[in-house]
């Protein structure tokens, strides 16, 4: 009983220590959810400040310089520190359970990935208190970012490198997990769609993040160590930065949207009580989108002056992506067609996602027409477009996922009533904010403007947009109330709380025991749990007898390795100012990182075993957390 017993009943400090050292994918998921949620709120506050500033012409709510810092941090935070970590939260929480695994392939690296992301994000956000945030836009185009004074852009470059390592590790870890750790019978073509999209998104991370890291690394050297990669006076070239950034940046949007597609692909069948229509073409479309995602980056650069041949090729390639995306949309509609739809909160998000995302998708095709894009580019039309796909796709998926997977992660259910209020406010606010922005752009409003002059026909649209943003904020506040309420009440709902769960994650008690599956399940087809339920069984057929389970020990090294880089980053940044303490700080930070790595390498850690007898005792008591 020993090992199981001491994971129970802990004081507050004990809980904190448990989370600082955990290597359990379910706890790491919670860490990602909390940290990502926190950054989402920060990004949201920044968004509100943008809309307040632009509510009326010639407003002076924030100054011009501060506005540029806000838009930069809004974009960077939302993409790197909110959307991706929140998706990582669901990947961590759900994917190993969906494939019938006891954890991810590398639990230690999983923890390291989280702490790197967290310290990178923390470092980036500390810029607000240490002389100013980055102000060159989330794209940080080289000529402007090199000209930017102060340390803002240094925070961007260093913070994103640290958190980027974390993301890359997470991606590789998921790839290895999905390739190697599927339960017996779980062939590739029996994997749930969320696992598939995690798989493809992880592959995209693997190929997309290195170019970003290279770009950031070069920019770090340009800004801090006197090189000239992007410095034209020294023979550099700023267009190269644009290529680096968008070779990463375009796949990045698919890294975000594919898992979102995955979440919806789980929700539709569950609440329509009908298997996903055209499973194999959905998988094919996912892979194709992932592949084409790397072929189209230059459509962000139509106005850079690459010439008509490049523009024409990238225009046509971009249009091609609409085909697999269309396949997905129609398959979702056909999934609910003929089903028995229950409108729970996750399902409300899922159905409203279809028209919202289609609207974002079609403007994407419009922008693919290069000569028309010469007009759309860098105008509010673009702002409208990418918020339609990112909010209408990714954020709706995150909210849907929160409601859908909350029982899986915490064993409790978010309130349906408050959830519906959040949905109504958020959905109305979203369309109110962004629909009108298409027209603002067409009427000649450039993006990233901190104010606009009266008399240009832009007043009404901007005001409507700001009002919409207030609705979205209200929706998010109610969501938070919902979360707090639910966790305070703490009503445990047990296994398969939605009643119509189809995949393996619903086959075990919610929240899952820390070893996930007592016996690895035997998977007999797509929607493995549904198959068993249809045959009148309540549990999966085990694929192995009960035996000892090998578990990894908790580790503090991931935290320390990340902390070391965090400290070193300050040293690297301030050595530019010839601060005498900077180089020692850099060395100390690196020493902590490499010391922890060395400790990890030398010390043998074989983990521990949960003994068979303990597992039998533990029979269906539910999770121990």
């Amino acid at each position, binding site marked *: 009983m020993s090992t199981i017993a001491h994971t129970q009943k802990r004081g507050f400090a004990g809980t904190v220590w448990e989370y600082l050292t955990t290597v359990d994918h379910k706890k790491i998921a919670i860490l990602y959810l909390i940290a990502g949620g926190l950054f989402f709120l920060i990004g949201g506050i920044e968004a509100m400040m943008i809309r307040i500033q632009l509510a009326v012409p010639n407003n002076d709510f924030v*100054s011009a310089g501060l506005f540029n810092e806000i838009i930069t941090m809004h974009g960077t935070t939302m993409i790197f520190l909110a959307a991706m970590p929140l998706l990582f939260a669901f990947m961590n929480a759900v994917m190993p359970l969906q494939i019938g695994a006891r954890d991810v392939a590398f639990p230690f690296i999983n923890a390291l990935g989280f702490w790197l992301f967290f310290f990178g994000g923390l470092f980036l956000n500390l810029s607000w208190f240490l002389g100013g945030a980055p102000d060159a836009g989330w794209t940080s185009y080289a000529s402007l970012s090199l000209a930017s004074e102060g340390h803002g852009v240094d925070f961007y470059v260093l913070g994103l490198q640290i958190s980027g390592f974390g993301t890359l590790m997470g991606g590789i870890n998921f790839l290895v997990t999905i390739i190697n750790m599927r339960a017996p019978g779980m062939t590739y073509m029996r994997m749930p769609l969320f696992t598939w999209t995690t798989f493809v998104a992880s592959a995209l991370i693997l190929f997309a993040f290195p170019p970003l890291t290279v770009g950031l690394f070069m920019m770090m050297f340009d800004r801090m160590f006197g090189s000239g990669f992007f410095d034209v006076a020294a023979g550099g070239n700023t267009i190269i930065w644009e290529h680096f950034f968008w070779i990463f940046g375009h796949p990045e949007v698919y890294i975000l949207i594919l898992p979102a597609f995955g979440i919806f692909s789980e929700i539709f069948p569950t609440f329509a009580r009908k298997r996903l*229509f055209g499973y194999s073409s959905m998988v094919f479309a996912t892979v194709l989108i992932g592949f084409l995602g790397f072929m189209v980056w230059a459509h962000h650069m139509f106005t850079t002056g690459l010439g008509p041949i490049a523009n024409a090729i990238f225009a046509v390639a971009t249009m091609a992506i609409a085909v697999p995306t269309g396949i997905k949309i129609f398959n979702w509609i056909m999934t609910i067609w003929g089903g028995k739809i229950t409108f729970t909160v996750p399902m409300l998000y899922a159905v409203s996602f279809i028209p919202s995302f289609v609207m974002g998708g079609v403007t994407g095709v419009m922008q693919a027409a290069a000569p028309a894009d010469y007009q759309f580019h860098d105008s509010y039309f673009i702002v409208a477009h990418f918020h339609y796909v990112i909010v209408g796709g990714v954020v709706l998926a995150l909210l849907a996922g929160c409601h859908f997977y909350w029982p899986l992660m915490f064993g409790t259910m978010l309130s349906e009533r408050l959830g519906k209020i959040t949905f109504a406010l958020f959905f109305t606010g979203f369309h109110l904010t962004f629909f009108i922005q298409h027209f603002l752009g067409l009427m000649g409003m450039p993006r990233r403007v901190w104010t606009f002059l009266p008399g240009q026909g832009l007043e009404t649209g901007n005001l409507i947009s700001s009002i919409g943003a207030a609705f979205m904020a209200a929706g998010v506040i109610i969501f938070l109330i919902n979360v707090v309420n639910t966790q305070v009440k703490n009503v445990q709902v047990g296994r398969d709380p939605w009643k119509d769960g189809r995949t393996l994650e619903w086959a075990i008690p919610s929240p899952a025991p820390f070893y996930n599956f007592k016996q690895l399940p035997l998977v007999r087809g797509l929607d493995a749990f549904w198959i068993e339920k249809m045959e009148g069984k309540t549990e999966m057929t085990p694929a192995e007898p009960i035996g000892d389970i090998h578990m990894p020990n908790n580790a503090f090294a991931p935290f320390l390795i990340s902390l070391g880089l965090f400290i070193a980053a300050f040293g690297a940044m301030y050595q530019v100012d010839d601060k005498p303490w900077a180089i020692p700080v850099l060395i100390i930070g690196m020493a902590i990182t490499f010391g922890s790595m060395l400790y990890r390498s030398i010390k043998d850690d074989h983990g521990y075993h949960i003994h068979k007898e303990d597992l039998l005792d533990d029979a269906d008591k539910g999770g121990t957390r």
Partner: protein
Amino acid sequence: MKQKLTKWRLLTVFGLLALVLSGCGEPFLSTLRPAGEAGQIAYDLMILSTVIMVGVVIVVSIMFAVAVIKFRRKKGDDSIPKQVEGSHTLEIVWTVIPILLLIILAIPTVIATFDLADTKAMDKKNEDGTTDALVVNVRASLYWWEFEYPNQGIVTSQDLVVPTDQKVYFNVKASDVKHSFWIPAAGGKIDTNVENVNKIWLEFDNEKASEAGNIFYGKCAELCGPSHALMDFKVKAIPQDEFDQWVTAMKSTKESTPTDPEAAAGQEIFKQKCLSCHAVTAADERPEQARLAPNLANFGDRELVAGILEHNEEEVKNWLEDPEKYKPGNKMTGTYGELSDQELDQLAAYLMGLKVEQ
């Protein structure tokens, strides 16, 4: 579900209302009211793609609405619907139809891409190095624009003057950080890069120009610093003969002493404090690196002060007193010391007298 539909309807009404209220934007600014061929090409493509895409949205929305309304689960209905695997026919249908639609869009896209990139006329040089086509070299600097007419040998800034009813060719570049040259009503934008010259052509129809009061708004479309939002310029599109007169007048601008004593005093101050950066003759032969600030040869004719303030002596004085207040991060602040009220009056009088138009 009903609730949701009403919401949708409400949204549509809201959107349409806003549209009707504002028309399609202002004729001097909106991309929806193209002023010439380049703008028209982009506009036609926008309309074609919008029509196709609105069609797609309608089809999807109808399918979606039917599915959502028809297949709701009734209370107490605990039946399991038929588990359908998929349909090859349907998959082929919704793969092939979008491909056809995209081909319809792709062909005009490719044609228009090459049409808009056709700047061969700029390369047809006469023996003296000039071109028959009107060429303007656009140089973007932190928060101001310079327009050099190499054939005519004149330089101006902030207000671009072009003849109507003919293609005008632009060489664009930036002198500090990247900007983007955009006259929404006339056509698409092109980035002003720091390492190379980009080329673009635009055209302004005489008729459309008069509708817009002969003035179009130009914008910087690439984030370039705190005052990016304020980096506006104006385009004066006038008939060919007026344009020729303007060129002649510009060529003959000289550093003559004004007759008004106040303006003359202003000129003295200008010589001491401003002339090292700002030229007052349009035939400025210095290399561009030496042209550190906007050319003021026809300052008195400008539409706005610094591209954003109303054009009168009062605003000129406000601007000179504290440029930082109006364009944060500009390069003029702090380069000429404090100016007394009297000096401001004199300078404003001098500057407003710099005109080439009667």
